[in-house]
């Protein structure tokens, strides 16, 4: 009996360590996000890039993008809140905020601001894995 008790303790300890390792992986995983303020064509509709827009993710300093800008930022962990503040024609400020889950295995993602503003719910349109087109 005694051996079983100790055996179980060791097995659970082993399991805990592995779980803890996975947690560390999730907590520490770093992704690079490319922020695009370019015209984008989504299922036939041409979305215009904005004149000036402010992009902020989590606690990081806000970034300003002009038309056709692309910036890069590093984020750590899986869930992030994206905050976009922009002004429409008559300079009224809008603030859009969205909590998103980033896929673990993707190292680099592209975030299109116009698509985000157009439809905040449809994540697949504005947050897509960035694959470098290799000439094969």
């Amino acid at each position: 009996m005694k051996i079983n008790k100790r055996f179980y303790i060791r097995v659970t300890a082993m399991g805990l360590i592995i779980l803890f390792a996975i947690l560390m992986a999730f907590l520490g995983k770093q992704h690079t996000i490319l922020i695009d303020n370019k015209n984008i064509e989504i299922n036939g509709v041409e979305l215009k890039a904005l004149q000036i827009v402010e992009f902020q993710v989590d606690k990081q300093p806000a970034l300003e993008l002009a038309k056709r800008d692309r910036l890069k930022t590093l984020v750590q962990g899986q869930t992030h809140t994206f905050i976009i503040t922009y002004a429409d024609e008559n300079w009224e400020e809008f603030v859009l905020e969205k909590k998103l889950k980033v896929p673990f295995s993707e190292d680099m993602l592209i975030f299109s601001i116009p698509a985000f503003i157009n439809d905040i719910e449809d994540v697949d349109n504005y947050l897509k894995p960035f694959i470098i087109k290799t000439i094969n």
Partner: protein
Amino acid sequence: MKDKKVPLLEMRNISKDFSGNQVLNDINFSIEKGEILGLVGENGAGKSTLMKILFGMDEIRDTGGYGGKVIIKGKEVNFTSPQDALEKGVGMVHQEFSLLPDFSAAENIVLNREPIKYSIVSELFGDRMHTLNREEIDAIAKVAINRLGINLDITMKVSSMPVGHKQFTEIARELSKDVLGETNPIELLVLDEPTAVLSEKEADSLLIAMRKLSEQGISMIFISHRLNEIIDVCDTMMVMRDGLIIKHIPIDGVKVQDIARWMVGREVSNKAKPRKFDYNNIETILDIKNLWVDMPGETARDISLEVKKGEILGIGGMAGQGKLGIPNGVMGLYTAGGTVFFEGSELKLNDPRALLDAGLAFVSEDRRGVGLLLDESLEWNIAFTAMQVQDKYLKKYLKGFMTWRDSKAIEKVTHEYIDQLEIKCTSSKQKAKELSGGNQQKICLAKAFALEPKLLFVSEPTRGIDIGAKSLVLNALRKYNRELGTTIVIISSELEELRAISDRIAIVTDGRIEGILEASKPSEDFGLLMIGQKVEEAI
């Protein structure tokens, strides 16, 4: 105190033989509770073999077990190991200490049985992660020490302890084993020559401690060469000789002389007629004055001895009394002091080369360690010393600048000795380590003979070799002495052998020459000398 009931330990018709020669035959004795039995006998009388049987040592099991029964409190018992014997309450204290120098007395006493405090980490990494319970360690040590009735600072490191306290720590360790309740209480304690290294005062306090233990009902077997200690502390006494119990009697009324006679007394079977050696007007070849030799275990304190030219002088005495120190000291293998004259001129001590150049040679008792080059051929072993000291078997070129091993001469001399000493080997090129003990001893002899020494020290020539080789070795020595007139000094712990070959025998006890007697003297006289009782000098 000794109530008549089932004896604590009884050994019934115990017998044991090592590959042919009978070491123990039909041993019967028993010990009561709380009784101290003194066990006495010459080296090789079978004492240690008997103890090894009691403790179920592998050495006995590997060489074919033993005959007879060992009965403890009426139940036959067969211990598998000293640890197993300990579980059943039978402890042993050896002569050499097995203590850790940098551990305190308390830590040594509870070594590997330390009481522990539970620690959670042990669930993960095993029991050895429990922390030690310091307070309990000290408590156990105190209890064990008190049972011996002596005061000893248990926190002191063993390395800074006097020898006596080390002995008590060792005994306390055996006693503490039952305090922990792990084993049933210690009932029998075997003490193997515990006082050999103690001073007079320390030995007395040990004897008092033993008396205290026996009052607590612990019986003891006390093995010692100091017969007066036996008489002081033991209740009964047993004398062993050549594997037999000669005497097993209560101690009261026994005198030291009786014990010595029983220990040694047996008729001298000297086949060779003892030659008359006229000592007075033969010049002294070797004169040793106040020699002290620092050889561990065989310290010689103050040896003065004159060796006559052409005689065979035997040096006897109990193990550990210092007789082996003499040859090793004179030949410079161990640091020595005092003055040694050889053929009139003084010899430089602590320099083996000076001795060899003067014409002395030495056959060491430690065949494998000192006497042989185990990985080299027989040729090398025999020719080496003669080549190095006397430039024999060397071809010289360019007037001695270029020396070259003369392999033909080496081979010739090796074959000479192989035939002369009947050394059984496949070829002269065979490696020394492949030979039997007896043949190895003959190689060492041949090495010394090759030097054609004027005086030859031979140390324990017949220890551990078969009977056939023994007589051959002794005959070779006798032949060399008679034909070439080489003076031979033979050191041996087998008195029988010394009396067969020597003209006279010096007995060394406690590092000093106790006395020198003619070989033909009755063995009792030698026995008395061995235990430090003066006998009227023969010469």
